[in-house]
Every structure is written in C-alpha cells, then in structure tokens.
C-alpha cells in the first residue's frame, strides 16, 4: 500500500513537472514573440531618429554657414532655396527622367555647374541628380536611373546664379 502511495506521489510530481515545463515553454514563446516585435519596432524607431538627427545636424551646420542651400522634398516634388533658417524661394520640380525612389535621403553637394550658350545649363549633384531648365543640358548619358529634375526657365535661372559649386542640398523623402 505504502509503495503504491509513493508511486502516486511520484506520478503526481512527474505530471506537475511536465505541466510546468510545457506552460513555461508556451510563456517563453509568447514573450519571445513580444520581444522580437518590440525589437523590430525599436530598430525602426532608431533608424528614423538617426535620419531625423542627420537632417537636424545639417540644419545646424547651414544655420551657421553663410551659404545658400537647397532642400528637396521628393514626395511633394518641390525644393526650397534657403539661406540660414530662411526660405528664399520655393521651386516646383518636374521629374524628367530617372528613378526618384532610388534617391538616397541625406546631404549631397553641387559638384558641377554646366554652362551652355544655348541655355542648356544644368546643376549636377554628384551621381544623385541634376537640375535643369526647360531645355535639356547637353550632357553625355549618365548612369541609368540618374534623376533629372526640371524647373521653369525663370526659377532655374534664379537658382543657377544663386548657388555655387560646393553648395549643399538635402534630399528629404
């Protein structure tokens, strides 16, 4: 009889162990899921904060600088010519060619001012994009996907003489 009691107690303990183990495994899976979700959310938030900080630091630099600069709002298809914290001019942009979705958010530099006697001037920002007037610049074909934005004749003319090689631009999505 005693032996059967022992067996019963041991069996009970065994069941309890199994139950706790299974419940723990379930809880662990649930917690893991929540943590992974939180991890994903935080990683995205950190990336977004880093991008925001990059633009804030760009602004901080430009506020202290004596140079005019451009801010491109890709989604709005517009740009602003700015000086310190002032907007000097709003510039509507028209996409002529290229993959604007491939433009990388962040700062870029005006690497070339292409002057052409036939009003085919252009402002080239490295391998990121170029700005032109209504008439396309006489440039050799660049990399596929290279973005070309067009401005109205007057806007482009104003902008062309307002910036210098080395002027900064910031691309915002």
């Amino acid at each position, binding site marked *: 009889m005693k032996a059967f009691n022992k067996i019963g107690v041991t069996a009970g303990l065994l069941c309890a162990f199994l139950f706790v183990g299974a419940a723990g495994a379930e*809880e662990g899976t649930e917690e893991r899921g929540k943590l992974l979700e939180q991890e994903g959310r935080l990683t995205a938030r950190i990336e977004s904060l880093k991008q925001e900080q990059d633009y*804030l630091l760009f602004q901080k630099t430009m506020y202290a600088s004596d140079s005019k600069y451009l801010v491109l709002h890709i989604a709005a298809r517009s740009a602003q010519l700015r000086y310190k914290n002032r907007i000097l001019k709003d510039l509507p942009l028209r996409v002529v060619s290229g993959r604007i979705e491939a433009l990388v958010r962040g700062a870029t530099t005006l690497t070339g001012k292409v002057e052409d006697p036939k009003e085919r001037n252009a402002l080239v920002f490295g391998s990121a994009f170029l700005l032109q007037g209504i008439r396309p610049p006489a440039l050799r074909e660049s990399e596929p996907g290279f973005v070309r934005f067009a401005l109205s004749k007057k*806007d482009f003319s*104003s902008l062309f003489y307002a910036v210098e090689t080395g002027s900064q631009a910031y691309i915002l999505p």
Partner: protein
Amino acid sequence: MRNKIQLMLKTSAVFACLLFCSSPSAGRSEDVPGVVSLEGLRAHVQTLEREAALLEEENQGLKNMLRAQENDDIFLVVDTESNRLTMRQNDSLLLTTKVGTGSRQLIKSEAGRKWYFESPMGSLTVLGKERNPVWIRPDWSYVEENMPVPAENDPDRIVRGVLGKYALILGNGYKIHGTKWTELLGTHFTHGCISVGDDDLEKLYHTVKIGTKVYLY
C-alpha cells in the same frame, strides 16, 4: 513489477526535469544555432530602448537649439535674376511682386570714370524708412544724359517725386522705392536700387520695420 514501475517513473522524472530545465522560461540559452536566448533578447531590447531614448533626447536638444535661432520677424527676399520681391514670415509667403533691379550696364564718363549698375547682393537690413523721398542725382545720372556734372551741393541735384511715395533705405545709396517706369517692372532697368509698384510699395512701407532683413541674390 513494482521495480519496473519505479524505474519507468524515475526515467520519466529525469526526462521531465531535463524538459523543464531546457524550457525558455528557465532563462537559459537555447542550443538552437542562430536563436538568441530570451535573456539575451531582453537585454538587447533594453539596449535599443536606451539608444532610442538617447537619440530622442539629443534630437530634442537640437530642435530646441534650432528653434532658439528662429523668430517670427517678417523678411524680404529679392531675386535679382527673375526680378521678383517676396515678403515672408516663417514659412508663409505674404507678398510677391515684380520689381526692377540693376540694369547690369556699364557707363563711362569722358574723364574715365566707370559705373556698373548692379543691385547689391547678400544680406542687408532696412536702415530707415522715408515718405516722399527725395533723389539726390548722382554724377552718373548726368554722365548718362551727356550733361555736365554740377558741383556736389548744387541744388539742381535735388529731385522730388521720382522715387514714389515711400522708400526703404538699405544703405550705400541703395533703396527699395517707387518708380514712374511701372511698365518696366520685372526687368533689369534700375541703377541698382529695387523699384516697386505703388500699391506694393505702400504695403511694404506699412509692414516692414527698421531692422527688417532683406536677402538679395
């Protein structure tokens, strides 16, 4: 029989212990390659939370610093290429109008003096405001009309009514003023000053304060 049952129970107990100990709730590393332990994951999430909080704090500091440099003051922008003047406040556009700017022409006197009529560039300030401004004809004005240049204090130099009803003084002889050549607004036709139509000039005069910034490019 009893021994057999006991052996089976003991074996099961050992197995159950192993199962329990290896369960994720026990907080131990899993042996599955590539899978981080719960403890490790918790620590990683905490690190990310700290990093996000730090970035938020830094960004808020930067925003405060940038905001401290901003103000609600009205400012003027003169685009000397397209001959447009805009009055702005923060991101709002309050006025945009055609203006006349420097003709970018060069004249020479017989004595070899030269004048190049270009509007000033850069960041200027409204230094003063005038009603019914008087024009003191400079030497180039006589040279341009092939007239003899009078003495510096000659009363003939004082001309009334040609600069409109108002003027905003920018310094070094440059002003934002009216013109009787309103059909030329939107072109380069002045001797460097910024010419504005009467109605817009009146608005500017009544809105702009001494100290207002004027950005010319």
